């Protein structure tokens, strides 16, 4: 058994190691070392917890068994999961953090003596407040992440689910959660604790159902942030520095990512959270869909254009992930490079279903990361490039965002694809993108539409390049 002061110091060390883990992610070279620091921090935290309890009763072996069970499931998932499924995986993991926070809070509520928090029915007020906040946020994280997971996995429709009186209902539930926390703290009634949990599960579910598929980057980041605050709440209850530091880190990390994603769509956080955006508004779609001529071509035309280019910029989007076209794309780029053509990749902040989604997929396909550029870095290069190859992206290339104040995406930062000498746009059909608006780019003089599956088209182009 080690003293409380010594274990507190060790928890501080593991908190610092977690900070270093995030710090390492500032560049790919240092990132692997950062991850290693994170693992060390976790090992220290767990070991110190064992040592501080000291009493190695029969329960100890069961702790190890449960760690082993969970650990092997986790390891198996980590090795099996395809990179395209990363958004679902992260959403699923968030839900587990949320649920674990809820379970720890329940356990502490039922048996506060074990945590030095007082006695059942007479828990220290401060601890009870922290505990109930941790539990409520954890529950919201859990049910919200489950919905996000189902939507990303396609089990649940990605389109927003809205109904009349949704916002007033949510507001009522949120207010009652606050009242419940207050009542719980003044009466210590177990029933109120269970009702609080139930209400929190319900609100997490209701908050996420109106949010559409392409807004998932914001949702995932937001839930990331919630899982951090939940952990911090439990950290205060347990008076554990490692947990408090980590909670604060994760909480602010998720918040920053949400902010970056919102900015990438030029929408306020509340606009996204209130949901309903991108409802497949048929009336809107039909009204604006006049018959305009488009030029369409085949793989041969595309290969010809690219062969005669000296620089090509690739614009990947969620469609590339769906078609699993990243490997085929890299092969095409390899062939282009053999012909001394300059190739770079342009990534929009909200391309894909989570922050950095496209970068991971390209990395998986062995694309060197120094060929991949963010919007700000590359946007000026489109004017000097010969060909832009848009594969699976849509709204993020729509010039309407710069020209038409009436458009729902007006003001959103977009890639200046239309400035290229020619644009190749791989797409299955002319259907509008997520925002439900027509892409003006389809009808431009310099655009050639390639109607096909992204993967098949890319492979065909590669064949034609030889």
């Amino acid at each position, binding site marked *: 058994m080690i003293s409380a002061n010594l274990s507190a110091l060790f928890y501080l060390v593991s908190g610092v190691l*977690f900070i270093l883990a995030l710090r390492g992610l500032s560049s790919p070279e240092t990132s692997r070392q950062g991850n290693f620091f994170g693992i060390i921090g976790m090992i220290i*935290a767990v070991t110190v917890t064992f040592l501080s309890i000291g009493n190695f*009763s029969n329960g100890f072996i069961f702790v190890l068994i449960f760690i082993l069970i*969970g650990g092997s499931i986790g390891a198996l998932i980590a090795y099996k999961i395809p*990179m395209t499924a990363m958004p679902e995986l992260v959403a699923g993991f968030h839900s587990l953090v949320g649920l674990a926070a809820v*379970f720890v809070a329940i356990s502490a509520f039922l048996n506060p003596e074990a945590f030095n928090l007082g006695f059942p029915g007479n828990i220290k007020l401060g601890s009870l407040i922290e505990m109930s906040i941790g539990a409520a946020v954890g529950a919201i994280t859990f049910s919200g992440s489950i919905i996000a997971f189902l939507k990303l996995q396609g089990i649940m429709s990605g389109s927003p689910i809205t109904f009349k009186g949704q916002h007033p209902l949510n507001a009522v539930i949120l207010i009652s959660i606050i009242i419940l926390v207050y009542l719980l703290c003044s009466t210590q009634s177990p029933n109120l604790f269970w009702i609080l949990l139930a209400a929190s599960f319900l609100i997490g579910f209701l908050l996420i159902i109106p949010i559409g598929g392409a807004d998932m980057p914001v949702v995932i980041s937001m839930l990331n942030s919630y899982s951090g605050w939940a952990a911090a709440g439990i950290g205060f209850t347990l008076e554990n520095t490692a947990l408090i530091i980590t909670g*604060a880190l994760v909480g602010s990390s998720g918040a920053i990512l949400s902010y970056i994603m919102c900015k990438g769509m030029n929408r306020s956080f509340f606009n996204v959270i209130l949901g309903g955006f991108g409802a497949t508004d048929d009336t809107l779609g039909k009204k604006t869909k006049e018959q305009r001529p488009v030029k369409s071509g085949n793989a041969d035309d595309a290969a010809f254009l690219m062969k005669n280019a000296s620089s090509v910029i690739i614009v990947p989007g969620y469609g590339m992930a769906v078609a699993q076209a990243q490997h085929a794309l890299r092969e095409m780029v390899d062939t282009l490079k053999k012909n001394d053509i300059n190739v770079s990749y342009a990534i929009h902040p909200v391309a894909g279903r989570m922050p*950095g*989604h496209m970068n991971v997929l390209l990395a998986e396909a*062995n694309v060197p990361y120094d060929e991949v550029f963010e919007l700000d870095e590359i946007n000026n290069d489109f004017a000097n490039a010969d060909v832009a190859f848009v594969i699976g992206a849509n709204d993020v290339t729509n010039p309407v965002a710069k020209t038409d104040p009436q458009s729902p995406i007006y003001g959103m930062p977009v890639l200046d694809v239309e400035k290229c000498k020619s644009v190749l746009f791989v797409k299955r059909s002319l259907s509008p993108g997520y925002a439900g608006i027509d892409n003006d780019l389809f009808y431009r003089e310099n655009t050639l539409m390639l109607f096909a599956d992204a993967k098949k088209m890319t492979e065909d182009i590669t064949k034609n390049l030889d």
Partner: protein
Amino acid sequence: MEIDPLIFRLSIFILAIFVGYYVVWSVTPSLHTPLMSVTNAISSVIIVGAIIAGLSGGSESVFNTSSIFGFLAIALAAINIFGGFLVTQRMLAMYKKKKKK
């Protein structure tokens, strides 16, 4: 007069938010996905609470209502810890620089 330890924890919390703010802004956008998976893994340090909860029964009653929740939380957090760190490692191993010819 003594200062409530809560104030100290609150100070750590607030300062850690600021540390998090500056550290996360310095993360390169191409690593945002690994950032999410690693934050996932480290927030599972909540397992320390789960272990205390799991061992709360003492030697007489290893399994009681309170400790069962603890054991479940241990398993959930362990999934996250192993899954989170390993998948992050798997992703980071893929980021390569251009080969010099």
